[in-house]
């Protein structure tokens, strides 16, 4: 088991390195120049050159790359060109804000999708089953920025129940979290339903039923546990995706998250900030998936035996 985890960690480091290298290159082939961008349209070439060398952007690419990787290893990401402060401060602040939002969205999604999925599986092929499947598809088919703005207009403007934008109190969390949760509800409901249906047909469930166990018992003691593996996997993946994928919802609701930071950093050509944000998003993603992998060992004895 230790060997398994070590292998995973080495692999994770490799994936990180790959992601960083790709980003380093992509950021630098972007058209645009951070120095002239910071100076605005009125600046002259000489002024931009001075700023560029102050920012260390006049070094050759290989030099910048080696400097960047060796700094990253020492967790030294330098200062943001645009925010003019240590990159690490911004990134950790923001990743926590997005984390709060992502976890809230995930909890909401689970609270809705488990009952719906179970209901649909138990009443397979019924009207309820179809209704659930349509509802979960709708959750996935509405563009989240449109939905988010509609939520603001309905709940903040018309009903005056919730604040429109910002991150100051827990009330501010509700609308963005729900907006973010809806597409997840779709994915998870379908997963719970199909996972449950699948295990229900397995022999041991049939046996349990044949033994005369009451359906609720069969459900909780046998079916649920086995269904959890794919569900946990998808939760892990989706949590990881939410870190960067929440950018739209963060923008609509003015949530100071990592996705918005990264998108702004890209628009500002703030290389250190872009690189560090991606590194953290990627690292978190990989970490979550590592935890998911390890959780299998506890959920499924068969994996433990291998």
């Amino acid at each position, binding site marked *: 088991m230790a060997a398994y985890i070590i292998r995973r960690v080495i692999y994770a480091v490799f994936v990180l390195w790959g992601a960083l290298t790709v980003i380093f290159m992509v950021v630098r082939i*972007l*058209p*645009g*120049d*951070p120095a*002239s*961008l*910071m*100076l*605005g*349209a*009125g*600046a*002259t*070439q000489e*002024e931009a050159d*001075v*700023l560029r060398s*102050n920012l260390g952007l006049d070094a050759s690419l290989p030099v910048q790359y080696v400097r960047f990787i060796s700094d990253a290893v020492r967790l030294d990401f330098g200062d943001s060109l*645009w*925010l*003019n*402060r240590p990159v690490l401060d*911004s990134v950790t*602040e*923001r990743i926590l804000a997005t984390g709060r939002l992502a976890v809230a969205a995930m909890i909401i999604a689970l609270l809705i999708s488990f009952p719906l999925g179970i209901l649909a599986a138990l009443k397979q092929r019924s009207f309820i089953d179809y209704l659930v499947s349509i509802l979960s598809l709708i959750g996935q088919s509405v563009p989240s920025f449109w939905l988010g*703005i509609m939520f*603001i*207009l309905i709940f*903040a*403007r018309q009903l*005056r129940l919730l*604040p*429109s*934008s*910002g*991150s*100051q109190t827990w009330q501010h969390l509700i609308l963005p979290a729900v907006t973010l949760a809806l597409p997840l509800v779709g994915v998870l409901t379908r997963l719970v339903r199909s996972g449950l249906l699948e295990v229900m047909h397995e022999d041991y469930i049939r046996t349990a039923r044949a033994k005369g166990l009451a359906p609720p018992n069969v459900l909780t003691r046998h079916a649920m546990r086995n269904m959890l593996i794919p569900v946990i996997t998808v939760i892990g993946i989706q949590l990881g995706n939410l870190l960067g994928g929440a950018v739209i919802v963060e*923008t*609509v*609701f*003015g949530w*100071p998250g990592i996705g*918005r*930071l990264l998108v*702004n950093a890209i*628009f*500002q*050509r703030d290389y250190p900030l872009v690189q560090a944000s991606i590194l953290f998003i990627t690292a978190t993603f990989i970490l979550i998936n590592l935890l998911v992998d390890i959780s299998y060992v506890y959920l499924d004895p068969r994996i433990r035996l291998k």
Partner: protein
Amino acid sequence: MSIHEQTVSQHLRELVLRRQEGVLSRRGFLKAATAMGLSVPLVTMLDQHGLAALQDAEASGELNIVLQRVLVSLDPHGPQSVEEPTAVIASHIFGTLITRNFETGELEPSLATAWEPVDETTWQFTLREGVMWQNDTPFTSADVKASLERVIELGGPLAPLWALVTAVEAPDDMTVTITTSEPQGTVPVSATLFFVTPAELSAEEGFFDAPIGIGPYQFSSWDRDSQIVLEASPSYWAEPAAVQTLTFREIPEVAARVTAIETGEIDFTYGLPADQLPALRENSDLSIASTPSYAYYFTWFNSSREPFTDVRVRQAMNYALDLDTLAADLLQDVGAVATAPIPPTIFGHAPQTPYGYDPERARSLLAEAGLEDGFDTHVIWVPGSGPQDRELVLSFVSYWSEIGVNVESREMEQAAWLDDLLALNWDMDFQTNTVRTGDADFTLRRLYTTAANRNGYGNPELDEILIGAAAAADPAEREALYADACRIIWDDAVGIFPFDLLANYVLNNRIQGFEAVPNTIPIFSNVTLAE
């Protein structure tokens, strides 16, 4: 900020006294006082001013403000120094040597009480006596000298205003002299954009994350991309602010911003699209303060590229647009048809003869230029550059198609656009511009000289006028020169100057005494709150 509970108050008094006697360290005091539930700014104030802070505290209430752009930095000298949010915050916590009175258009003393040219190339400023920084150190000429040198050294967007400066001297504590290599009449005007920061502290790492200022407000906290909080400064040298707390929040999405001002979540915002204003105007809780601003739209032609090398083609493009209709249909209360290459709010503005909507004339001009069948071209622009920008570009393209010119609208991302713009890699460019200083020099000399080469247009006569106007110290002489410059730029159709923009400040009726300023840097130190 009354401290109701007697016991707390008693205990607090003891704490403050012990701190003043030096028995208690700053850290120990902060810890003990915050543990009593006092806010950090209040504690800092008690630390700095002792019990006086408790008695003098008349300011009360809070304002929630949303600016039209994202606040990125509090450093008023660096790369963000001309960005509106940075300038707004700096105007509240720092100060300038000179301010402009927008009603009279005159320059007025602020941190400097007097200024005068001592010879052709030297300006002398006399500083205000007895002004203290918020950490209780005195304001001196060393601060001014260090700040100006910092502006020049950082090479940010304000640095070009001071490009001719050869020396900044501080002969005594209350005097500063600025020497330039050539005569420069614009020094006092430039000083209205120049914020003084504390000399030694400014050099320290992280100072601008939580700066110590000199203005009517002091820094309290900053949660990036979320909000920044300022508290009234009890030690302000002029009349102290009436509103205790200013919270500047970030709300990027228009729908959310409109909702927030309607529901009273926020008290103040500006820069909303024209179509949002009628509904807000009907809201009895809100008022809209409007004024002509320093900002305007323009469309440049790349005069170094065919067919825009021909002045007739450039003029034809002007005649093709029905600006009056567009102003009425699209811009409504946010813009008006322009009369010169710079807005009427700007020193140096001189009204020109409008081109007017004349598609026939446009077609015949094109025919004279040998383009009776029209031509294909493009316009580059960045979405979000101004109110109704997309609508305007779409409409321009539509009008131009009427005279046979096919214009492709190239919507670009800011960084890529800027790259192309500076490299003259475009046919036409559509954007807004703001004359930050309120003086024609800021825009005309920087953008229209042959040396600047920003749009492929070069004219030795214009160069001479603009350089002469910058050197002249006599306002009347400068005004006459800029009138000539306006005429040349307008008649040669270096660009299309369609609309001047209005600033529309939307405010809750509880805000009283707000002055609608043309430079879109709203100031809250002199507003009061109605009960």
